[in-house]
């Protein structure tokens, strides 16, 4: 019951909770998002309700798949992903560093996501004004990671 923090009852749309004579207490719906991405154990066995979660909610991952580092986790259930790249200046035959920030929805299935972690995001339908991506894979930053510019 700890997931009922809102003023309306949080539940998965796809699941009917009140079938008569059915003893299984926790009926939970989850899906395989495809493209070889594994659904986290927390999504299958957890109790959170998130309609924007790619594994237990009503969003499909299609279109672009991008990776980046986590720049900020201060928002509720969403993160800012920073993608760095090099831009070539033809006159000087040299490169310059540029970056773009992407707002991505972070499902409660991913626990312990911190600034600096590497994250894979997949494109989905618009979830809010700026969010069109959803986190589908999370990889912790290596302990010996340098502060220098990293390119993948």
């Amino acid at each position, binding site marked *: *019951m700890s997931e*009922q923090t809102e003023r309306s*009852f949080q*539940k998965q749309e796809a699941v009917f909770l*009140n079938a*008569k*004579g059915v003893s299984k207490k926790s009926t939970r719906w989850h899906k395989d998002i495809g493209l070889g991405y594994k659904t986290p154990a927390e999504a299958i066995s957890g109790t959170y309700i998130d309609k924007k979660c790619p594994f237990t909610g009503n969003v499909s991952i299609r279109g672009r798949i991008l990776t980046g580092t986590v720049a900020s986790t201060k928002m509720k259930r969403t993160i800012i992903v920073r993608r760095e790249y090099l831009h070539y200046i033809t006159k000087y035959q040299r490169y310059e560093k540029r970056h773009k920030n992407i*707002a991505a929805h972070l499902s409660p299935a991913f626990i312990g996501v911190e600034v600096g972690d590497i994250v894979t995001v997949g494109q989905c339908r618009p979830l809010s004004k*700026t969010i069109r991506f959803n986190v589908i894979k999370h990889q912790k930053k290596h302990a010996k990671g340098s502060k220098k510019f990293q390119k993948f």
Partner: protein
Amino acid sequence: MELRISRDSRHKRSHTGAKRAQYRKKRKFELGRQAAGTKLGPKRIHEVRVRGGNKKFRAMRLDTGTYSWGSESISRSTRIVAVLYNASNNELVRTNTLVKGAIVQIDATPFRQWYENRYAQTLGKKKRQPTEAEAKAAEAVKLRSKRALAKCAARNSTVDPAIDEQFTTGCLYAIITSRPGQSGRCDGYVLEGKELDFYLRKIRSKK
């Protein structure tokens, strides 16, 4: 469209915070219309012509809807009595406005009749001794052939005690799942189990 409500994002700041300059006027395809604010009362529905020539039925006043009793898998058309709770806005409760997601009280008689027909039992526990009228009703419910009674007995007639209690008052708690301002209907399902507990607590804590 006289009110000029538009649903564009051109008037909003971009993701970086930059103010976007206006470079074109409002277009008809990004129009928005006034909210219906469907109230309880004798049915009054306005038809609206929408994009593509299609129709939307803007219910201005409604008093009945089709509600499903999920665990029994039946639906009945019933009268809506009152709006009890709205997660978004208390004002909508005070003004008895019907919107999707509002918790309402519905007339329980069609469901009670169906139940008594199917299971040959009465609903609603009564702590005191049943009056003569109620005893007669219980008898009438049992008036059928032995084979029919055996079939009724074989069915699973268990009902959640929280719902049983509601039958004594004659009103069930239900939630609206249709959009009255779009479809012109106020349909939904009867609240059961954890969801019922959740909303009952919310309603009581407000009183």
